[in-house]
């Protein structure tokens, strides 16, 4: 075996590649851009005012002047104690919302003592196996005073139930809770992989959380329909928006089937996207998505209330647009993406740390990521007026092009038979895998330029980061120890009773499971126990493996 082939730090022929002397003329989604755009090329030069249908220019009349976006950094690792400490550190640095990263066992519905979970406890997020851990996680954090976002899907209903139970324990009325659960299972089947149950009962569970939340936690976002993960998995900005809107429509159909009032629940639907490096394509993706969503809800469901037509979204800057080679350059990348997010009108922004391509951020890199947002917010001046790029011939033209292309993506899914079928058959998964493969080949061939990776390399470049984040190797055993203590001291009869009630309710399609899950949480039933109970009624998703 040749050594250069397996040692990524070795410099190959790429170091000597001649850089292109001209910019590419096509966006990453494949839209061919003319050298100059003129007024006559724009479909509708006057897009009306921000805060008015179809919201191309933004959902609020005063943009960020009323309120800046929420700075929300994704964070969590190891034990609840360590994560609680990191949250208080971030809040102290001026972060304005919490975003909880959960470990894979919690996300996939396994207790930390499960054999399949043992090497993953506390690795990519915090372990949250029962209410006792949630109480520690939010210790000395006022859940009425801060909005908390949970990146949780397969077990979203359970984590949301746990958060309601924390509020109950802190004596906070549930209606005061603000925050978000991701709760978007459709994209999990396609990209992120933390599915548990088959598609149809999963949709039912999501409808349960949304309908319950509308009543009991009206300021909480019970779903964040996410394009971010399919994007990071390889698809284009156009496909990211198209698949996400298609998923959103599928949730609406399910909620209507369950008797929900679209004028009411559509107000609480929110979205989540990646911002990658192509500045104008990203800005126009958001402008086009916002406009298209409002139009589709009007056309397909007759929605009238402007609040129900508003496309509210958060973003993450970074992900696969960040590069392991010369990682300090990622600070610049995230800065540019942060600006695109603001120009696109995002409601909350997570800026990834420059070392994210390698590891959980250190305090140093996490602080730079927060500071980036503060510099954009308070020094750059770009938040001063709403939609500052609106009316630019190029921006309006590209917004039109993006809208047309996104519409084609949605039409393709409709023609296939809808998202549910596309996911069950593995059709969408295969499309994304092929797209990822194309993207990789363009980077390898040099067609796509990535500074420091396939061009502009240094002979001596170090592809690591100076400071490594080290997870506490004993965190996992401490989690397991605490877990066993809770299991040994709780009231077993109460656990059995609440789980039995959950099982019975799961068998009835029209029953809302949220109250049952909250009862289970209060009894200190574990995530694994609740998931096992539901699996006994619904079975598990069988992944269609297609290549």
């Amino acid at each position: 075996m040749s050594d250069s082939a397996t040692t990524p730090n070795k410099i190959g022929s790429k170091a000597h590649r001649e850089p292109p002397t001209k910019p590419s003329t096509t966006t990453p989604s494949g839209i061919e851009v003319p050298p100059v755009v003129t007024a006559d090329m724009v479909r509708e030069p006057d897009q009306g005012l921000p805060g008015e249908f179809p919201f191309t220019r933004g959902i609020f009349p005063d943009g960020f002047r009323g309120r800046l976006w929420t700075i929300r950094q994704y964070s969590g690792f190891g034990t609840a104690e360590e994560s609680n400490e990191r949250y208080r550190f971030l809040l102290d640095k001026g972060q304005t919302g919490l975003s909880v990263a959960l470990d894979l066992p919690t996300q996939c519905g396994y207790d930390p003592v499960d054999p399949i979970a043992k090497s993953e406890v506390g690795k990519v997020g915090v372990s949250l196996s029962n209410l006792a851990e949630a109480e520690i996680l939010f210790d000395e954090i006022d859940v009425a005073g801060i909005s908390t976002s949970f990146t949780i899907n397969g077990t979203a209903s359970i984590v949301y139930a746990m958060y309601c139970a924390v509020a109950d324990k802190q004596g906070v009325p549930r209606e005061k809770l603000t925050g978000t659960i991701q709760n978007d299972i459709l994209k999990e089947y396609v990209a992120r992989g933390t599915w548990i149950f088959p598609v149809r009962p999963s949709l039912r569970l999501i409808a349960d959380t949304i309908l319950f939340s509308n009543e009991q936690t009206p300021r909480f976002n019970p779903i964040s329909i996410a394009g971010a993960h399919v994007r990071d998995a390889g698809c284009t900005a156009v496909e990211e928006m198209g698949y996400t809107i298609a998923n959103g429509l599928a949730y609406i159909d399910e909620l209507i089937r369950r008797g929900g009032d679209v004028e009411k629940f559509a107000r609480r639907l929110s979205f989540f996207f990646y911002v990658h490096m192509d500045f104008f394509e990203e800005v126009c993706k958001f402008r086009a998505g916002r406009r298209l969503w409002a139009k589709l809800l009007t056309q397909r469901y007759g929605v009238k209330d402007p609040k129900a037509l508003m496309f509210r979204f958060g973003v993450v800057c970074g992900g696969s647009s960040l590069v392991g080679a010369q990682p300090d350059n990622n600070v610049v990348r995230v800065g540019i993406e942060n600006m695109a997010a603001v120009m696109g009108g995002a409601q909350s922004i997570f800026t990834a740390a420059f070392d994210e391509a390698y590891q959980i951020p250190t305090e140093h890199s996490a602080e730079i990521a927060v500071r980036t947002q503060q510099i954009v917010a308070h020094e750059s001046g770009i938040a001063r007026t709403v939609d500052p790029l609106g009316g630019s011939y190029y921006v309006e033209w590209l917004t039109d092009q993006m809208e047309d292309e996104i519409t084609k993506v949605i039409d393709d899914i409709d023609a296939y038979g809808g998202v549910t079928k596309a996911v069950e058959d593995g059709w969408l998964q295969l499309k994304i895998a092929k797209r990822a493969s194309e993207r990789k080949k363009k980077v390898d061939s040099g067609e796509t330029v990535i500074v420091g990776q396939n061009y502009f390399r240094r002979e001596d470049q170090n592809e690591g980061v100076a400071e490594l984040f080290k997870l506490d190797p004993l965190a996992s055993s401490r989690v397991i120890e605490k877990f066993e203590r809770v299991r040994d001291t709780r009231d077993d009869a109460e656990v059995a009773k609440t789980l039995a009630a959950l099982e019975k309710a799961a068998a009835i399609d029209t029953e809302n499971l949220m109250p049952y899950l909250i009862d289970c949480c209060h009894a200190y039933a574990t995530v694994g126990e609740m998931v096992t109970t539901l699996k006994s009624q619904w079975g598990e998703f069988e992944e269609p493996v297609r290549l």
Partner: protein
Amino acid sequence: MSLNGKRILIAKPGLDGHDVGAKIIALALRDAGADVIYTGLRRSPDYIARVAVDEDVDAVGLSILSGSHKELVEETARCLAELDAGDIHLFVGGTIPSEDHDELRQAGARGIFTAEMDLDEVVAAVEADLNA
């Protein structure tokens, strides 16, 4: 030299759901002539070893982005050895810090691949190893 006639199992051990890399590599190896089998998500090392033996593969490629690579590579190597299949070559790809490479090699990984590498480099390395 090619991968014609070689059988390769691409596997996702543990709970990590990031399968893009696994699928890209699977497609690239297939384009290079190999018969590629992909396990899908959330497979235990024991399951992966059994499939590798049942399918009579020449190599197993593990894709791991969750930080659990040491445990999962060691465990898979152990399960293969238990089935007298220590001759099946083991590769690993994903988010693997260079500090961990030596340890993974000692555990039995014959190649370690990260996202920065060109697909051609990865395919060439597998080819060279299986034809050696």
